[in-house]
């Protein structure tokens, strides 16, 4: 250390600090900024979570504290009294107000009721009511039952899983076709496919809806599920990017061993592409879980088939006087994708990096 004891120093705010210390300080500052940003970022979600645990009275009361709390009450000689924060000589005490007076009131100390009524000089109206934390956990079972969550969840899960399998498998085939084979019209076909990304779904909405009505599929899940089994542009694009990075030699070796293209694809390429396949599957799962536009249109008038997103909209309309229930429902809805995301985030982030792009 003696030989390298010289370190350039700089003034950082008020202190002379070494480069080493400055680095640590800088890193600390960045972490702090990140935490601050995180706090701001999580505020709406946090607010939603906290409000979902409040009572209806508290939600309606604009002066109520931010955390779920109930006004504290104390039973004295058979009657219930409100508890207030009373400033006394021994600091602030939580006393129950028994006899209200203009300039002085009588309180009882819940910790020492034997002492009887205590006279307190001052206006009781200026006192803050004492509150105790009180989480209304049963908002969740109530929301769960009111909205028939189980059915909504099962509908959504069925939709998300079926289309995930269909879309990923079919897209993998198409992506491999585009990535590895030469054939006439390839460029044009790929352009048409990419064009469907740019094409607003609203443009195809009208004729697609007319078509599905004509063949009698509206009001069922079919218009939402069947098309997914025929590849979609985003997935093809992402998987093709990944397939292009797999070296050709693998397939050539397989071909020499006598494997046909299908066999090569299934037993050589697909195992290599697991990170990309996982990422695309997750993208699709999240997309389908949160899909609103499609189900809203095709399942109109069939509440038994609604997925969660549409169900929540109707719930919101019916229970606008009970925001705590709506928020509880919202929190339940966002939990499954969040949990899956947290569990799979390592694979997911890796997949995002390998596919280079996300939805």
């Amino acid at each position, binding site marked *: 250390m003696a030989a390298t004891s010289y370190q350039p120093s700089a003034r950082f705010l008020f202190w002379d600090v070494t480069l080493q210390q400055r680095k640590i300080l800088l890193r600390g500052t960045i972490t702090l900024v990140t935490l601050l940003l995180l706090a701001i970022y999580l505020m709406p979600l946090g607010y939603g979570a906290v409000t979902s645990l409040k009572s209806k009275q508290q939600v309606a009361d604009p002066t109520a504290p931010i955390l779920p709390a109930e006004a504290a009450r104390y039973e004295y000689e058979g009657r219930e009294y409100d508890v207030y924060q009373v400033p006394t000589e021994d600091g602030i005490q939580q006393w129950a107000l028994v006899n209200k007076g203009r300039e002085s009131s009588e309180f009882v100390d819940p910790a020492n009721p034997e002492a009887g009524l205590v006279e307190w000089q001052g206006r009781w109206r200026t006192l803050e009511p004492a509150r105790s934390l009180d989480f209304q956990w049963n908002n969740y079972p109530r929301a769960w039952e009111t909205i028939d969550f189980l059915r909504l969840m099962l509908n959504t899960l069925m939709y998300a899983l079926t289309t995930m399998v269909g879309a990923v498998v079919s897209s993998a085939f198409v992506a491999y076709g585009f990535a590895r084979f030469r054939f006439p019209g390839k460029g044009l076909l790929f352009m048409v496919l990419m064009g469907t990304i740019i094409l607003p779904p609203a443009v195809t909405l009208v004729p697609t809806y007319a078509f599905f009505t004509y063949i009698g599929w509206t009001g069922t899940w079919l218009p939402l599920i069947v098309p997914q089994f025929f*590849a979609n542009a985003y997935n093809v694009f992402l998987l093709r990017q990944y397939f292009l990075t797999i070296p050709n030699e693998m397939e050539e070796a397989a071909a020499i061993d006598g494997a046909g293209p299908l066999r090569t694809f299934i037993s050589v390429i697909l195992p290599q592409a697991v990170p990309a396949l996982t990422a695309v599957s997750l993208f699709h799962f999240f997309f389908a879980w949160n899909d609103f536009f499609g189900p809203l249109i095709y399942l109109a008038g069939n509440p038994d088939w609604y997925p969660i997103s549409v169900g929540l909209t109707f719930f919101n309309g019916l229970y606008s006087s009970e925001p705590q229930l709506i928020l509880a429902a919202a929190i339940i809805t966002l939990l499954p994708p969040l949990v899956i995301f947290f569990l799979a985030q390592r694979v997911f982030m890796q997949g995002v990096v390998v596919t280079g792009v996300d939805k």
Partner: protein
Amino acid sequence: MAASAKSPVARKRGLTARERDEAITGYLFLSPYLLVTAIFTVGIIAFALYISFTSYNLFQAPQFNGLENYQKALTDTNGFIRSLVNIFWYVITVVPFQTAAALMLALILNRKIRGQQFFRTIFYGPSVTSSIVISAIFLWLYLKTGYVNFMFDRIFGLFGADWSAIEWLNDPRGLFQLIANAFGGDIPSNLWYLRGPSITWMAIMFMNIFTTAPTFMIMYLAALQDVPPTLYEAASIDGADGRQAFWNVTLPMLRPVTLLIVVLGTIGAFQVFDQVQFLTAGGPLNTTLTPVYLIYGEALGRIGGGSIIRMGYASAMAFLLAIIIFIFTLIQRRYIESGTEQY
């Protein structure tokens, strides 16, 4: 496989047997797409184009009416034209802000900090949650007695000022109108297009920037991994400090992904629907009406209370919207193509 295809001689003579085999295999792999998506999409678009020149209500055969739908759309200042003005404000606000926010988040989360992975995961959270859930939460934040007004009240209170609570999701006053008001003037309602985005519309914009920024942050994070560290080393040898390295190395290297984010962001922004359907239904005073909301409403007969299905009119608006998106994308693509092969 590759050897024969690469030979230019074989090319000129047409396909060799080997190439034909390869082409057939290729088409077979593509069959899910060729069978349905390609044929269906092309067919559907042709059909859409046809009914955009007709009057069609699903139950009776389409009646040809020429350019009437297009004419109606382009003159309906309370409907389609208004939705275009609204979406214009939306796109020019949301796209730059969400791109900048995404870049900022990515740069911060790309620093070597403790719990980097944890932060990335948390910030990405809103992207995997549904627009409806986010809307449901913001609905209560934006109430007159909600948390947003409460915060403004507290902040204004710090400076001894009064904050008059705003009904965020039901306030048609426009941005420029508010500025005019501040100077004692006003913008009359027949000049509605000069009033700027309404308070409600801006509240929705803010909410959407909040949700989409982390989605694009991930793309920036991925792209930041691809910047070769040698470039930074070279820059620091040349004496560049952190800020110069950012402007001269990081930003140029992020150009392709930035333009991709801008294009995808623009396409998405033009089609905003969920939040409008859930929160405002186009109101107040049509200031949050969007083209897709109108198209949905006309196609399914959900507008005007008369439940009249106007598929032809909806289709015409959809085509006009597609043309506008296409023009925007073309302009942006001119920039994308200068500098990117990888996307």
